[in-house]
Every structure is written in C-alpha cells, then in structure tokens.
C-alpha cells in the first residue's frame, strides 16, 4: 500500500511591539519573573483591556504579504480553559472572524518544484505565561511576564506532503515575518513557535487519516526531524494493520523521539464567545492602503530582482534572499563591489561556511562588515593579493573584525608582483632542480606545477601566480 503524508502547520509568531496587546506592560524578553505585569494582564476583576493598534497593523502586513483576504470587521473572542499560565481562565483570541483568511505561500524546497501552500487563517491573540517546573518538589512556578504578549497564529491548509516541505514552508514564513520586521523570529526564545498535525492515508484516498499533533519543536531542523520520526511511526503502524491513535506528542530533541503528552483525555470544549470588553475592529480601505504602501520588498520580489537585474542564478538568489539581513548584507557589499556573481560566490562559500548554524545564517553576528568584504575582493581583482591569500586574510578578518588592508599589511601578505624579486628565486629553483628541468624540456609540461609550487613555498604563497608562470616559461625555454 502506498501511503501519502499530510501535514498542516500552526505557527505562533510573537509580535515585535513594545507593549503587550491589551495593556501597557513591556514585552521585553528575559526580565526577572513577574516584573512585566499589571492588573489587566494578571486578569484582575474590573479591568478593561484596550487593543494595541500596532498589533492590527502588523497583522495586516502579514496578511498582505501572504495574499490573504483581510476581513474588514474583526471581533475578539474568549477561549475558555483552565491552566495555571492563563490567569483570566480564558485567552483573548479570534474565532469566527479572524483578521485574515484564504492566503498562500509559495515554497521552493531544495531539488523539488515550487508549490503553493494555502493559509487557512491568521488571527490575533494574546500569549500565555510560562511555567517552570520544580525538579524536586511537586510544584510549578508561574511567570506571567509573557501573558498578554501579542501573537499572530498562522494556520496552514493540510497541503504539505513531506517533512522537508513543512520545513521549507516554515523557513519561508520565518523569512517573511523577518522581512516585515514584525517578529524577531527567535525560535530558541519562543518568538516563533510551531505545532504540526500529521496523518497518513493511502495514496488517492480523499479522507484524511487519523492525525497526531506534534509540539515542542524549537528549530527548523527539529520540526523536520520530529515529522520524519512521526511519519515513520505512523507508517509502521498502518503497514502492520494497526491504527494510529489521535494524540498530542512532545518532541524530545535530545533523544530524537516523540512522547505522548500526559493526555487531558476529553476533547477540548473552549466555549468561544465574543469578548464583551473589546469592541469590534473595522479596517478601512485607507488603513489597508496605508499599510500596503509601507510594505518592504518581500523575499520573492527581491529574489526576482536579483535574478533579473543582477543576473544571479536562481540558486544564488534564493540563498541570498532567504533572510532579510543576508540580502541586506549582500546589497551593502554590492554597492562597493558591483560584480554580483563573484560577491555571491564568496558569501555563499567562505562567509556562510563560517556562519552556518541550525537557524540559518546569523549575519548580524558577522565580524566582517560588507564594505570590508567588498574591499577584500577588490584587492584580489587589483592583484594586491592572490585568491588563495584572500582566504587567509578573510579568516583573520572573521577572527578580529579588522579591515583587509590592515591584515595584509600586518601579516605582510602583499602579493609579490615585482619581476626582479621573483626572478632571483625562480633562477635559484631552476638551478637546484636539474632533473625536473630535464623533464620539462623533454616535453613534460606538467612539471610547471612543481616549479610554481616551489616558488609559492619559498614566498609563503605571496608570489603572483600569473607572473610566476610567465617567468618560469621564459627562463626554462630561454636557455
């Protein structure tokens, strides 16, 4: 039986507002526990939540960037449940009138054709607090700093067919919120979180199989790994004639396995109803247009521009635009070094090899500034240093953040292009290696590599390779 995997993702993106969604408390991460709270976010009786305008603006931005229909009339609803991280006993969210619906995102998984993934809805809601569990005592500690931090929940259609596609979707969405500058995207700190629903069905069948929900995946890689694990687990069950049980699973990244959450058994009944404290939000055409006008260039548009105007290959453009910071870095360097492809090669190999982490490239942490990189490449073009030496210089720049000129000067790496200086050494080498000279003259032109190599050794790689070749040819044939 051939099985097909069906995956849908729910992403929670914390918004980069200064204050919380319904009160003036700071959203700053990492403050001492319970120091960013007030009667509103603590759920004291008699308080009145008032909506932060910027939350709506950010939600509209994302809606437009993902081709959603923006609902002109929005209401907030109470989602009722009890949990110690939820002081009011309900979460203010949106239910039947979310801010945006029917969007889509185009993903381009590596080595596979691009696909459009539907976005069911985007809605605004408040985050809950944080629980810290005691290792020894049977108790938990509640920190309500995060309570009321604004979130956008982005729900995809069950359009994803492989864990790799799910990771690609997530990366794309992550890039978009970063481009829009509405979320800092920090998965470790939980500003960009993902839950996944996954089920398998016989290929060609319309109805979905029984799904399980995966939680606690705090990196792109973990999302893909957890889904691959769960895909295998479900496939083994089904091929064995057994059934998948609907359950919520927690991914344990250290052990590489998922474990069933201690089940709350009964299906949830959130008893949503309109929140009487919050009046409806109406989004005018003018507001919509104002936000639209302020949208930055998005990844897809930027990629297209890189391909069409800079002549970069599709692959380069995709990699460079995968994050706004990386694309900005590239363009800043490009301003001083207009050979786009050469610059792109350098960034994609040397730079990214050093900076690559699980969350992609943290270009903000790069000690080499764009102008410094541009200058380094210019020095190679002008023959001041060889391409090989440039890599040594670059390494030093990554370590110290120094300017390339300073490194070259300090380490005495300037390429030797002085004919007189090199000629002396060339003649010494020829004199010292009569056997190789014989071979060369006998027609073994490959021996040239040996000679140049000797010269590089003696000059510590600083000899201008082109000139070295010329000198040896001349000297060896001239005699």
């Amino acid at each position, binding site marked *: 039986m051939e099985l097909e995997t069906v995956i849908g993702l729910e992403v929670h993106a914390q918004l980069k*507002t*200064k*204050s919380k969604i319904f*009160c*003036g*408390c*700071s959203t700053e991460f990492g403050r*001492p*526990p*319970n*120091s*960013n*709270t*007030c*009667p509103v976010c*603590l759920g004291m009786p008699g308080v009145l939540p*008032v*909506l*932060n*305008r*910027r*939350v*709506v603006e950010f939600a509209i931005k994302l809606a437009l960037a993902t081709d959603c229909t923006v609902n002109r009339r929005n*209401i907030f609803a109470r989602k*009722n449940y*009890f*949990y*110690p991280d939820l002081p009011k006993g309900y979460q203010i969210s949106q239910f039947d009138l979310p801010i945006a619906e029917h969007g889509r995102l185009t993903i381009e998984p590596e080595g596979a054709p691009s696909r459009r993934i539907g976005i069911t809805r985007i809605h605004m809601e408040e985050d809950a607090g944080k*629980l*810290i*569990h*005691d290792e020894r*005592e*049977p*108790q*938990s*500690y*509640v*920190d*309500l700093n995060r309570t009321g931090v604004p979130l956008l929940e982005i729900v995809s259609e069950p359009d994803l067919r492989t864990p790799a596609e799910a990771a690609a979707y997530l990366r794309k969405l992550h890039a978009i919120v970063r481009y829009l500058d509405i979320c800092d995207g920090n998965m470790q700190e939980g500003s960009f979180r993902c839950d996944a629903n996954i089920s398998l069905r016989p290929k060609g069948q319309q109805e979905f199989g029984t799904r399980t929900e995966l939680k606690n995946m705090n990196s792109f890689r973990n999302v893909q790994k957890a889904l691959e694990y769960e895909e295998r687990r479900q496939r083994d069950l089904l091929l064995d004639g057994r059934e998948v049980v609907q359950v919520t699973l927690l991914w344990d990244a250290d052990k590489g396995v998922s474990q069933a*959450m*201690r089940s709350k058994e*009964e299906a949830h*009944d959130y*008893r949503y109803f*309109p929140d*009487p404290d*919050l*009046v*409806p*939000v*109406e989004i005018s055409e003018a507001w919509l247009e104002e936000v639209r006008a302020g949208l930055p260039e998005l990844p897809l548009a930027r990629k297209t521009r890189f391909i069409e105007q800079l002549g970069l290959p599709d692959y380069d453009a995709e990699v460079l635009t995968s994050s706004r910071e990386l694309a900005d870095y590239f363009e800043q360097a490009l301003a001083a070094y207009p050979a786009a492809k050469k610059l792109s090669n350098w960034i994609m190999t040397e730079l990214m090899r050093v900076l690559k982490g699980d969350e992609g490239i943290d270009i903000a942490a790069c000690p080499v500034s764009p102008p410094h990189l541009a200058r380094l490449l210019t020095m190679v073009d002008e023959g001041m240093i060889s391409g090989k030496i440039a890599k040594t210089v670059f390494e030093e720049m990554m370590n110290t953040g120094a300017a390339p000129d300073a490194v070259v000067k300090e380490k005495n790496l300037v390429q030797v292009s002085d004919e007189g200086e090199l000629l002396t050494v060339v003649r010494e080498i020829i004199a010292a290696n009569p056997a190789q000279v014989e071979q060369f003259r006998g027609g073994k032109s490959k021996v040239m590599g040996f000679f140049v190599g000797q010269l590089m050794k003696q000059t510590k790689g600083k000899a201008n390779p082109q000139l070295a070749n010329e000198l040896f040819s001349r000297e060896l044939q001239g005699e």
Partner: protein
Amino acid sequence: MQIGTDKVAEMARLARLELENDEIKALTVELSGILEYVAKLQQLDTTGVEPVSHALAVVNAFREDEVAPSLSREEALANAPVATGEAFVVPKVF
C-alpha cells in the same frame, strides 16, 4: 429547552465545579427553566437582521504602542495563595 443531568455535569467539569448528584439534579431543573425563558427570543423573526456581537455602536478603541509602568513584583504576587519571592507557586502541572 430541556437539558439533561449529563450536560450539567459536563458544564460543571469544564468550570471546575465539584457538584454532588442532588446538586446536579436541582441545577438541571433550574437551568432548564432559565433556558426555556430565554428561548422565547427564538420566536422573534430576525430575517434580514445582521447578527451583532456587541451592544455598543463603538468600533476601533485603540491604544498606541507605548509602554506604561507595570506593577512591582511584590504587588503582582500579593494576592497569590502561595508564592516565592519571584513567582506564583501552583501544584505540579504538565
């Protein structure tokens, strides 16, 4: 509109109310009476009437994204039945 004791028990569970059987029975009768009373509204012909979520005509009550002072931690934790100096303490949850 009539509801059964199972429905009332379910509502009690969701609201974390611990009710005795006789309380559930009594509440089933009372709640059914209330629901019947409210059900009179169903007799109104609402054809062509837009549903409303709020009785006020006000929309778009916003605040600007500005930080206002929070409570001190002592104040925030003052009403907690159990707290450490920095956090609320609750029975272990998963």
